[in-house]
């Protein structure tokens, strides 16, 4: 039996909307019914732990970091306010400029390769008939092993004297002399990108695979009937339908890769001659290794504008998608 038309507004009013209620203000709260007050209180109780956690572990360190970047603090000594002097120093710092360049190259190359390989792996897994579970589980191994451990293993594999990679290449006749994978600036950057790609590809593959499985086989069937070949099916069907998932994965990956620390710190320490320093490793070197906490905080915050733009874009894209769905 259809609901009477006049009962609809009452249903809407009684629907729990704690966040909106919280924004009503005290005056509105006083006028609110007992039920609404209870809901408001419940919402507050449920939100408090999350707000406290965010405040303590995200907001406070962030604000403290901004403030530290404006001081000339060194380890063990309170700093004086110096305005933007730390940022000016970084601007004139050749190692910092090299670091910025490295970070963009590292993030760009690694993300592109992870997306390409992740998409290939996802497509293969999506079309596999047997061993699906084993293959999916084993593919996640690089992702679930702690980064420090797997990077140490890579360090051994790329060791100039004992590299297994060199040994294999030598045995199959590809090289005659040892390759110093972490020695030259290009090789070292290439190697750290390689390890990042090895580690990050499963994240892309699994997420894209989840996206692929939401695409209805009917769409492919219709495309096939219309005469689309494999490439056209991918380019005209899979790629557009997978775009929302791809965008989210890429943006998350950009954030993680841009702020990467462990991998470079263990493999090269930023060397040789600063050719693999990233924002995070250089900020660590200034702030922790040389004890200049103010300058270190400024170097660390140099990442912020880029990451902020990425996050803004991500939010805009997600809201746009949600809006699109709502309007459909």
């Amino acid at each position, binding site marked *: 039996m259809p609901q009477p038309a006049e009962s609809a507004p009452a249903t809407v009013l009684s629907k729990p909307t704690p966040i909106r209620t919280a924004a009503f203000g005290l005056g509105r709260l006083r006028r609110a019914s007992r039920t609404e007050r209870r809901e408001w209180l419940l919402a507050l109780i449920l939100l408090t732990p999350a707000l406290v956690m965010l405040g303590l572990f995200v907001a406070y360190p962030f604000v403290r970091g901004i403030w530290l970047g404006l001081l000339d603090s*060194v*380890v*063990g*000594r309170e700093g004086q306010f110096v305005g933007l002097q730390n940022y000016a*120093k970084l601007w*004139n*710092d*050749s*190692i910092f400029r090299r670091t910025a360049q490295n970070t963009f190259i590292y993030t760009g190359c690694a993300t592109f390769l992870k997306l390409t390989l992740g998409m290939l792996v996802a497509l293969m897994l999506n079309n596999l008939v047997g061993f699906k579970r084993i293959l999916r589980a084993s593919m996640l191994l690089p992702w679930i092993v702690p980064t420090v451990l797997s990077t140490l293993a890579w360090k051994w594999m790329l*060791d*100039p*004297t*004992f590299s297994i990679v060199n040994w294999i290449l030598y045995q199959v006749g590809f090289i005659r002399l*040892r390759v*110093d*994978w*972490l*020695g*030259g*600036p290009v090789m*070292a950057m290439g190697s750290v990108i390689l390890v990042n790609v090895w580690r990050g590809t499963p994240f892309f593959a699994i997420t894209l695979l989840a996206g692929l499985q939401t695409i209805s086989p009917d769409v492919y069937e219709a495309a096939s009937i219309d005469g689309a070949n494999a490439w056209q099916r991918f380019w005209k069907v899979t790629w557009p339908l997978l775009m929302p998932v791809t965008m989210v994965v890429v943006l998350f990956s950009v954030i993680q890769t841009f702020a990467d620390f462990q991998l470079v710190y263990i493999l*090269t*320490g*930023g*060397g*040789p*001659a*600063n050719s693999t320093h990233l924002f995070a490793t250089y900020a660590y*070197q200034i*702030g*922790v*290794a*040389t*004890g*200049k*906490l103010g300058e270190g905080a400024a170097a660390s915050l140099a990442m912020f504008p880029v990451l902020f733009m990425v996050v803004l874009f991500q939010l805009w894209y997600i809201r746009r998608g949600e809006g699109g769905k709502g309007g459909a």
Partner: protein
Amino acid sequence: MDEQRRGNSGRRWTSVPRRTFLKAAAASAGAAALGGIPGILAAGQAPAYSKGTKLHLLQWLNFVPAGDKVFLAQVEEFARQMAVAVQVERIGMNDVRTRTTAAIEAKSGPDIILIPNNLPHLFGDGLADVSDVAEAIGKDQGGYYDLPRANASSGKRWIAVPQFVYSWAWNYREDWLKEAGITKFPETWEEFREMGKKLKAMGRPIGQGFGHSENDPNNYVYPLVWGFGGYEVEKDGKAVVLDKKGTLEAIKYNTALWKEALDETGLSWDDASNNRAFLAGSMSVTGNSPSIYFVAREKFPEVFKVINHAPMPKGPAGRFYQLPTLSSAVMKYSKNQKLAKEFIRWYMSKEQYGKWFEVMETFAIPPTKMWYDHPVWTKDPKLTVFRDVIKDARQIGYAGPPGRKASEALAKYIIVDMFVKAIQGDKPEVALRWATEELRKIYSA
């Protein structure tokens, strides 16, 4: 009610008979009068201030396990005599900076940290004054060498107590040098280059690391610059004078040496890479402490027979060394400073330090001069060379005073990277200009 009573706060208090209290008080007073552990031993009782406290030591991962064994036994002995708990934590030397920075900022953590090189100056504001302990040890043991004094004293006060200085020399394969027709290890850098050419031609190059690692790269590049007559800063600690002919000559020499004589994978080496490669037989000469020799003695007897050691070659300006110093720093935030100082005083006493020094063989050079004639130096003639290296050692930031700026230059690997840039193809003049500019930024701040 028996001896257990309850105070107003609900805590349990143990009542002490008056006679026992007086004995304990007298013991503490006696300990103070006699000074440290001897006084405590004489009194036969731990002093009141130490009882029940916990001392936390942050140490490095020792390359000589026998040294650790003796040290831990000494720690146990100290803990027993002082009726305290002592916790020893060990981490890699490259991680000490991080831990120290974090501890000082958080104002909590270890009571004593063993800090490498000139880094005590970097952390000086967070370290307690240990002048009384350091001066007493120096006075008792023949005075300090210049290098450990520079690394642990600000000139006005001691910010740490030097524990030992790493010994360092060229480790070489006698058999392979003979095969190359070399009967005596080179005395000068030019002879060193000629030797390297022959060895590399035989597929057995010289190994030298240039990575971002605490010891080996710095132990080579600083002495090379000094040997050719260059140095970072004038005595005033302000005027950066690296861009001199001597430094340029050192860069040119090393760039040529890289191609002609060195193992060309050294750009990515850390402090352990050359040890492994030398023992694996992929190189004939490398600069190191005697740890390679000790490991060969245990595990590679054939290699052990043919290893020998030689001093740094001389350059036009002379022969120099950069040697890592390890110093015990008492943290300013520590609530157990008195006990921490007592531990250092006890551990560095002639009797206790002598036991440790002997098992460390020649790996550790004591910071004071009284150990120079100790038989440990002459027991194995192949190790005697390590005794004298400290006499020619200079501190980082020479000729300026030791301090935070010199520490920063070291932590940023400016001199190491100057050589790396030239190896990677920059003109020596460009690499030198870059390093000079970086140093100027540090010293003008």
